[in-house]
């Protein structure tokens, strides 16, 4: 007899990839105990690890300006937001670790050694407080759109369940970014000038966050981890944010940005080579960010070791 207290003896199995695809196409949800195809496990693990790394490195990007927050409540708010990002990383690393490919420690150590990747936007430095706002307004919105598109289908059960919380919190972050932008946009000349300079730095990285056009046979689309192609998400983002930023009187740093007769905005052509270099840890702030995290990880190893000894009773 199967009861709630008894785990299934074996998970579901599939004869081959076609059989698995039929399961996915019929709306099936894969669970950790299933005997999922190795190709699916590897792709989904890599995607979740990338997401987890990006959440953690996003938190590290935003931490730089928290000590300088221009107010106590703002400091609390930005702390809470950064805490959310690190909390997302925490959840995602657990989901990824349960896939049995790498442990959480292995994932973190790969990240700090530059062996694994994270989103392009977190290779850049927040130069002023306005950059912090540009991240909150532009980057959080792009991340929200991207994650919501994954949540929409997402055939890997644990990931979808965690994304429900992440997407909800990212929605708050996006609203927070809008409120913060409004303060600068309706503020003094100094504030508006600061934000324009930040927009000049962050517009293209935010647009590039969605990645190059999806491959025609992207397995993440085929297996319904992603629900939308990268180029479609990017186009929707441009369509939404160009009029908003223009409405606030800011200039988009894209000389070839144009609008069709039907009102659709189109960004200029994107040179993806700098993005690829950035993703290989060649971004403007990649080295500093990774070095800081890696040094701290090494400096605090004694804490983890002491707690491990405690756990082992030695």
């Amino acid at each position: 007899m199967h009861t709630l207290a008894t785990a299934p003896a074996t998970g579901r199995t599939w004869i081959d990839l076609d059989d698995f695809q039929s399961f996915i196409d019929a709306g099936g949800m894969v669970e950790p105990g299933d005997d999922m195809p190795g190709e699916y496990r590897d792709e989904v693990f890599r995607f979740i690890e990338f997401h987890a790394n990006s959440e953690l490195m996003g938190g590290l990007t935003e931490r730089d300006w928290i000590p300088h927050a221009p107010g106590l409540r703002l400091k609390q708010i930005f702390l809470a937001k950064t805490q959310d990002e690190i909390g997302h990383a925490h959840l995602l690393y657990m989901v990824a670790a349960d896939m049995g490919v790498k442990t959480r420690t292995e994932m973190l150590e790969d990240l700090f050694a530059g062996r694994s990747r994270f989103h392009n936007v977190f290779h850049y430095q927040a130069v002023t407080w306005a950059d912090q706002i540009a991240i909150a307004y532009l980057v959080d919105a792009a991340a929200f759109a991207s994650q919501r598109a994954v949540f929409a289908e997402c055939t890997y059960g644990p990931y979808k369940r965690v994304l429900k919380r992440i997407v909800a919190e990212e929605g708050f972050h996006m609203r927070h970014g809008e409120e913060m932008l409004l303060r600068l946009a309706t503020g003094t000349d100094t504030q508006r000038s600061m934000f324009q300079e930040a927009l000049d730095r962050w517009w293209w990285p935010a647009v590039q966050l969605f990645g190059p056009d999806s491959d025609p046979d992207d397995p993440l689309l085929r297996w319904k981890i992603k629900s939308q192609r990268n180029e479609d998400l990017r186009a929707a983002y441009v369509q939404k944010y160009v009029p908003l930023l223009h409405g606030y009187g800011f200039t988009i740093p894209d000389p070839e940005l144009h609008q069709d007769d039907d009102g659709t905005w189109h960004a200029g052509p994107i040179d993806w080579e700098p993005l690829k270099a950035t993703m290989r840890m060649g971004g403007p702030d990649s080295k500093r960010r990774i070095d800081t995290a890696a040094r701290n990880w090494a400096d605090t190893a004694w804490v983890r070791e002491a707690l491990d000894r405690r756990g082992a009773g030695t």
Partner: protein
Amino acid sequence: MTYSPAVRDHLLAFADDEHLVGARHTSWIGLGPFLEEDLAFCSIAQDELGHGIGLYGLILDDDVELDAFALLRPAEDYRSCWLAELECTDWNDSLVRHWLYDRAEALRWEALAASPDPAAASLALRAQREESFHLAHAEQFMSRIAGTDSTGRIADSVRRLAPIAAGIWDPTATEDDVLAEGFVTTSSAQLAARWNDLIRADLARWGIDVDWDDAGVVGAQQHRTQRSDGFAAFHADLQRVLAVDTSATW
């Protein structure tokens, strides 16, 4: 609420301590020894900042803007203790500061909760609920790591920071007036004695056998009117954005 200058100074000292220790804790966001600790320490930092906001709220007149007061005052107008101002660049220092400070903070809130002033007592009761978690976190972390830290870092931090932490109990110059008014009934010296017993009992329970010399911090703080060596840089960091345009709403 209108308080006497003595009570105002007494509350300001606590407010500045809470604000600055919370601000110092923020430097660890994203850099804790493991993710769970990152999340816990971040919550504690937010709570301490919230306590600071609540205490400033008791003493600020309606026409005084909180952030300008908290961040843009001249250094000599702060009444913080040196432990709250201290930059802890090593995790062991930050953890030990957390334990020493929160051991004291719990006693300070307890004293304020007994105040006949309803606004102060109400704030203290709310803060005590959060503080119980902070103290539990500090005690549990210290108890788990103290006996297994083969590097001696924790003991070194206790030896260096305990004398600085004693400066928490440096009273404002007019504390006698605060007691005479009956705003609180327990002196800093009485709380210091209890704190000293508590931290020594903790250390004995955890098997940390260290002693320390009086570094003279209490006297050097001169009733909390003197700032520590690193304060100027810390203060500049705190006000870096606000000072860009003091007429702006950020």
